[in-house]
C-alpha cells in the first residue's frame, strides 16, 4: 500500500507537454501527440508503467469472460427460460418482465395514468431545473402544490370517471418515484422549519429542534420504517387505520426532514450575519428577514447538498421491501421467486442496479453542474 501511496499522490510535478526531449514539435503529428499523452499519463516512470501493466493485466483477466457472459453468449429473445444458454446471461428474464418492473401490478388498462403523471412530473420539473429559467420559484411552488394534487387524482382515481386503483397495487419503479417525490416534497419544507428552529434564539424551540434532528439521525431508517409498519396501529383509536403506503411515506418524510434540516443549516451558516443584521435594521420582521433575505441565499448554496440527500433517499426507497411494499427491486426479487426464473438473480439484480445507477447518476451530475455554477458565481 505504501508504494501506491507514494505513487498515487500527484506529488511530482507533471511536466508540461512542451518540455523535455520527447516533446512533439509545435504542429507535430497526431501520432506524436497520442504517444506524448500515453507517455505522460501511463508510462512517466517505472512505477507508473508497472501500475499501467497491472491494470491492463487485470482488465485482460476480467473483461473477456464478463463480455462473453453479458453479450456474446447472452440470450435476448424468446419468452421462456428454455431458450437461455447456461454460460451466458439470460436477458430474456428482463424482457419478459419489463412492464411489471416499471408499473408493478397497476392494472394494465390504466397504465396510461402512470405515464401521464410521469410526463407531468417532467413538465413541471424542467422549468425548476433549468438554471436560466425566470420565475423558477413559482414553478417550484407549482411542482410542490398543484402537481401532487393532479398526480394524486390520476394515480388513485375514484373521481372524474377514473377507476379507483388501490395503493396495494402500486409497485415497481413507479413506487420508487412516487415515494421519493412525496418524501422530498414533504421533508424539504419541514427540514427548513427545523433548520430555522435549530438556529432560533428561543430556547424551547431550539431544544425541540435539536432533539428531533439528533433522534432521527441517530437511528437506522429501518427502525423508523418498522415503526410505521407495526407500531402506528397501536397509537390510533380503535377501528381507525391508515394506508400502509401512506404510513411508510410519512415515516420517510419525518426521517429525511432531519437530514434536510442539517443540509439547510449548512446553507444558513453560509449566509453572512451582516445580511440578517442589515435586513433587521431596515425594519423587517423576523419572518420577513428569513423568508426574503436569509432563506433564498441559504437554499441557493445548499442545492447541491440537497440533491445529494435526494439521491440518498431515492436509493433508500428500496428499503420499503423489508416492510412488504414492492419497489423496483422488490418486484424483481419477487419475479425471481418463480421457480422457472429462480437461477437468474444476477441478471435481475444487475438490471435494478443499472436502472438505479442511471437515475442517481443523472441527479448527481445535475448537482455537480449546480456546484460548478455556484463556484463560478462566487
Amino acid at each position, binding site marked *: 500500500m505504501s508504494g501506491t501511496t507514494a505513487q498515487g499522490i500527484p506529488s511530482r510535478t507533471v511536466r508540461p507537454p512542451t518540455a523535455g526531449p520527447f516533446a512533439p514539435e509545435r504542429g507535430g503529428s497526431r501520432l506524436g501527440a497520442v504517444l506524448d499523452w500515453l507517455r505522460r499519463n501511463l508510462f512517466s516512470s517505472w512505477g507508473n508503467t508497472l501500475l*499501467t501493466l497491472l491494470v491492463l493485466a487485470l482488465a485482460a483477466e476480467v473483461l473477456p469472460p464478463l463480455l462473453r457472459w453479458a453479450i456474446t453468449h447472452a440470450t435476448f429473445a424468446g419468452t421462456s427460460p428454455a431458450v437461455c444458454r447456461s454460460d451466458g446471461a439470460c436477458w430474456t428474464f428482463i424482457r419478459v418482465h419489463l412492464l411489471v418492473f416499471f408499473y408493478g401490478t397497476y392494472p394494465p388498462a390504466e397504465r396510461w395514468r402512470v405515464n401521464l403523471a410521469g410526463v407531468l412530473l417532467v413538465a413541471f420539473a424542467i422549468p425548476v431545473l433549468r438554471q436560466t429559467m425566470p420565475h423558477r420559484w413559482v414553478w417550484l411552488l407549482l411542482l410542490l402544490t398543484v402537481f401532487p394534487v393532479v398526480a394524486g387524482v390520476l394515480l388513485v382515481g375514484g373521481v372524474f370517471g377514473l377507476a379507483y386503483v388501490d395503493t396495494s397495487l402500486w409497485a415497481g419503479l413507479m413506487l420508487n418515484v412516487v415515494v421519493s417525490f412525496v418524501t422530498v416534497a414533504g421533508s424539504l419544507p419541514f427540514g427548513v422549519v427545523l433548520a430555522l428552529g435549530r438556529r432560533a434564539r428561543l430556547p424551547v424551540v431550539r431544544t*425541540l429542534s435539536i432533539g428531533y434532528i439528533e433522534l432521527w439521525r441517530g437511528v437506522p431508517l429501518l427502525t423508523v420504517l418498522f415503526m410505521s409498519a*407495526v407500531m402506528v396501529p*397501536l397509537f390510533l383509536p380503535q377501528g381507525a387505520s391508515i394506508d400502509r403506503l401512506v404510513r411508510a411515506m410519512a415515516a420517510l418524510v419525518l426521517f429525511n426532514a432531519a437530514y434536510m434540516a442539517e443540509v439547510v443549516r449548512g446553507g444558513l451558516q453560509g449566509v453572512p450575519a451582516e445580511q440578517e443584521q442589515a435586513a433587521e435594521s431596515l425594519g423587517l420582521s423576523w419572518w420577513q428577514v428569513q423568508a426574503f433575505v436569509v432563506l433564498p441565499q441559504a437554499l441557493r448554496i445548499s442545492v447541491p447538498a440537497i440533491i445529494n440527500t435526494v439521491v440518498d433517499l431515492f436509493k433508500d426507497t428500496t428499503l420499503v421491501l423489508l416492510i412488504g411494499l414492492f419497489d423496483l427491486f422488490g418486484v424483481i426479487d419477487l419475479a425471481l421467486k418463480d421457480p422457472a426464473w429462480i437461477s437468474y438473480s444476477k441478471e435481475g439484480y444487475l438490471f435494478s442496479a443499472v436502472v438505479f445507477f442511471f437515475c442517481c*447518476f443523472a441527479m448527481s451530475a445535475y448537482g455537480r453542474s449546480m456546484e460548478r455554477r455556484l463556484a463560478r458565481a462566487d
Partner: protein
Amino acid sequence: MTRRPSRQARAAQWLLLLAVIAAAWFLASMAGANLARRHIPFGFGYLAGKANFDIPFRLISWSVGDTYFRALVICILNTLLVSALGVVTATLLGFLVGVMRLSINWLVRNLALGFIELIRNTPQLVQIIFWYVAVLRTLPGPRQSIMLPGGMLLNIRGLYLPTPVFGSHAAMLCLIALALLLATPLVWRLRLRGMSVGARSLVLPLLGVALAVVSIDHVELPRLQGFNIAGGVQVIPELVALWAGLSIYAAAFIAEIVRAAILSVHKGQREAALSLGLRQRQVLSKIILPQALRVIIPPLTSQYLNIVKSSSLGAAVAYPELFAMFAGTVMQQTDREIETMVILMAIFLSFSLTTSAAMNWYNRYVALRGG
C-alpha cells in the same frame, strides 16, 4: 448582534412545548388503551423470559431457552462485530481508492472513479443482496472450495479463516498485550524525543501485537475432511455478504472524503516543503497527511456511524444482528412492539452518541496539538 426575540415569540414557544406534550400524552393514552384491550401490560420484564429460538451465529454461548436478555447481548455483539469489520475494511479500501483517484496514472485514476460512481449510485440493499444471492449462494460446495491467499477457503458455506492456536502462557501474554493497547493514549501524550505522534501511538500496539504473536503456538489451517471443512473459523455467508456490502459501499464515500481532504491542502504547502529539501515521502507523511487528516475526521465519523446504522440491513440476508432478531423473531414471539422498538432505538442512539463523542474528542486532540 441580532435583536432579542419579541415577548410574544417567547410566550409562543411555551405554547409549542405544550402542544408537543399534549400530542405525546394523546399517543401514550391511545397506546395504553390499545394495550389494555390486548391484555399486555407495558414493561421490560419480558427480557427475563425464556426465548425459544436458535441464533445461528454468535460469539458467546447460547442455547434455546436462555433469556431474551442474553439474546439481546448476543445480537449487540453480532452488530458490533459486523460494524467493526466494516469500519476497518471500509477505511483501508476507502483510503486506497481515494489515493488511486489522485494517481498520475490515467488508468488507475479512472478505475477508481468508475468504482466510486458505480457503488455510490446503486442502493446498498441491492448490493448486499447481490453479494449474498448472486455471488455467495452460487459458490461451489466444500469439495471444490476456492483457495484464497493466506490459507483461507471460500465455498457456499462461507469463508474459512486460519485460526491461531495459543501456547501455554497465552492468557497472561494476551492480557499484557491488551493492557498495552489500552495504555496507548497515555504514551500519546508524552513527548518522546524525536518521535512523531504516529510513531508514538504505534509503539505500544506494536509491542502488544508482538507479544500476542509470540504466544501463538501454531496456526490451524482450514482443510477438507470428508465432505466438510475442518479446522479454522467459519464465517457464515450472511456475515460475509453484509460485511462486503457495508464496507464496499462506505469505501466509495470514504474515498471521496480522502480525495477532497488531500486536495484541500494548499499546494503551496507541498512546494514550500519541497523547497526546504524534504523528500517526497516526508512531504506526504509530515506535511500533507497531518493536515488532510483534520479535514477527514468529521465526515469520516458520519460514515462510520452510517456503517453501524446500515448493519440493520442484515435483516435482508438473515444475519442475526440486533435489528433482524429483535424487530423480527422477538417481536413476533412476544408481541412487545413498543418495548422492543424503544430498546432498539435506544441502543442505536447510544452507539451514535458514543461514537460522535469519541470522534469529537479525537478531533479536538488532532486540531489542538497538530500532527
